[in-house]
């Protein structure tokens, strides 16, 4: 089932930057002898190529956050990696940040791997000026004289259209948009090869959001980084991502080029999701998806979407469909699309 992960893709058939294989990350708790496992990520495989923005979409509690926590190595109990591996091109041989020695992780953080989070307030130290945040995070990786470093920071801030005066400001003195741009500058100043963006614009106003997305795109093009872009907002995905994976209840259900997902969704969940989005200029009534999202402590057997699926058949409640190539670069996990021999 991993054969389709590293698909040769024309001129891009160099090794992908990140290969996730059959990742299983569970929240395991044990209260008074009662053991419970929330299977938040259950058998996810994908690869992020060099120089692309890879989108990840899914509703709340579909496991998006758990997946990026695992990739970023932020694994704290009760979260546990139960199986699978996450191989970075710049950290070969360990199968994930959580298995690498701390010194190695320290070396690659910010330099090779950085994050843009939803609440930039949580990234910037609230009691230190912006300048100090830059010195704390980036100076150890860049080195050189302090003056050179400051010049580099100022030059980088101008890329996100921030005035050098913000360096002397405290985070609370900046507006939400400015703060998010400062966090973006901080995340990209070391020109990391891989950026994890977790709902980076969800808290922003629509007008500011478009501006910040444009900056993320601009910096990504300039530095040639890969971005793993997570958001539930399909409008943002349509605007910025190159490829898009749809997650449902802890598993990927479909993956393709973003345009392909929007034009030709194959999985019934994706089809419903795309069809339910209202668009300006279209008056046709839209129907939502019936039923409720599954409880991951006790997920439905077989395909986790089958209780809500209009195409469900007998096999769907028995067996788990695997991701299969359904077209060039288009993978989908569904018996109705792939046929009953899907397993």
């Amino acid at each position, binding site marked *: 089932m991993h054969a389709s992960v590293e698909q040769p893709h024309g001129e891009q058939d160099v090794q992908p930057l990140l290969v996730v294989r059959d990742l299983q990350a569970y929240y395991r708790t044990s209260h008074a002898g009662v053991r419970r496992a929330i299977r938040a990520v259950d058998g996810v495989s994908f690869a992020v190529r060099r120089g692309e923005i890879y989108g990840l979409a899914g*509703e709340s509690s579909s496991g998006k956050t758990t997946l990026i926590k695992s990739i970023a190595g932020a694994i704290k109990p009760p979260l546990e990696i139960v199986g699978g591996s996450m191989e970075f091109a710049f950290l070969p041989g360990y199968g994930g940040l959580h298995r690498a020695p701390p010194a190695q992780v320290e070396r690659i953080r910010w330099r090779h791997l950085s994050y843009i989070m939803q609440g930039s307030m949580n990234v910037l130290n609230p009691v230190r000026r912006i300048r100090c945040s830059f010195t704390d995070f980036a100076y150890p990786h860049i080195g050189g004289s302090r003056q050179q470093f400051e010049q580099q920071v100022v030059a980088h801030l101008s890329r996100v259209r921030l005035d050098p005066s913000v360096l002397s400001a405290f985070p609370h003195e900046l507006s939400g948009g400015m703060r998010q741009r400062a966090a973006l500058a901080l995340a990209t100043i070391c020109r990391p090869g891989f950026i994890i963006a977790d709902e980076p614009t969800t808290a922003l106003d629509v007008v500011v959001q*478009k501006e910040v997305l444009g900056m993320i795109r601009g910096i990504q093009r300039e530095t040639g980084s890969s971005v793993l872009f997570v958001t539930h907002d399909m409008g943002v995905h349509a605007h910025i991502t*190159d490829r898009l994976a749809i997650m449902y209840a802890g598993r990927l259900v479909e993956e393709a080029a*973003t345009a392909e997902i929007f034009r030709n969704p194959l999985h019934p969940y994706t089809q419903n999701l795309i069809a339910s*989005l209202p668009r300006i200029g279209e008056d046709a009534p839209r129907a939502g998806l019936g039923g409720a999202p599954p409880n991951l402590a006790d997920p439905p057997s077989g395909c986790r979407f089958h209780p809500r699926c209009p195409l469900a058949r007998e096999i769907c409640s028995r067996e788990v469909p695997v991701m299969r190539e359904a*077209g060039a670069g288009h993978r989908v996990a569904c018996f109705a699309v792939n046929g009953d021999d899907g397993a």
Partner: protein
Amino acid sequence: MNDLLLDVRDVSKTFVRGGLFSREEIVAVNKVSLQLAAGRPEILAIIGESGSGKTTLARMILNMVTPTSGRLLLDGTDLAAISGSAGRIAFMHKVQPIFQNPFESFNPLKRVERYLLMTRRRFAAAAGGSTAATAVDAALHKVGLSLKEVGGRYPHELSGGQLQRVAIARALLAEPKLIVADEPVSMIDASLRISIVNLFRTLRDELGISIIYITHDLATAYYISDRILIMQKGSVVESGDARAVLTAPRHPCTRQLREAALLPQIAGGGANASGTTQVI
């Protein structure tokens, strides 16, 4: 007199920040007027960036904030004249709110039906004589749920979409004429969002309830609203038929919002159209 359900006349709200020496006045809402006709239910969308005063306006309509100047009349009653609990209950009987985050509107430690029963008890004198449980069940049926489904459950056991439906059912128990919904779907997942939005349309068509729908999402506003009001820095800059305003915006602010809205569609042959292979 009562041919207007809601008559907002030139209301302004100014907040004062700072102390004795450094007074700073922030005009949150600046001379806004709007009318909703009685007997002709409609969905009115209020759109604006953050800080444009749309939530303050909603809170004034809900009588949670007193306007600095101007008058608000609901069904001919001046909101400023409402006093005492009897007056407030009569007011809440006509206007009900729905808030952004359903998980914050319910106490996590109490079962959800408790809120429904409490609301029912409060408005029981005004509503018919059926028993509390059947009235609650009837309200839940209007939003596509039933007491059997949600009874005995705590808020965390329901999805955001279900909980928002319960919040709407709670509002319906008062049999209101107007619902003020402040960003009711922005916390709801995409697949459930449209069902809540469709529910508003059902409420308008079948129960004759007018809805003030406050949002920054132009696409859903286009989808359900009849009329639209664009706010910027406390003032209304453009208003009119929702479809006309959104397809041919005139004010630069509306145009800016329209351009900034990221629509879930792929522009033909755009930057990311690398995989246009059609699979049949």
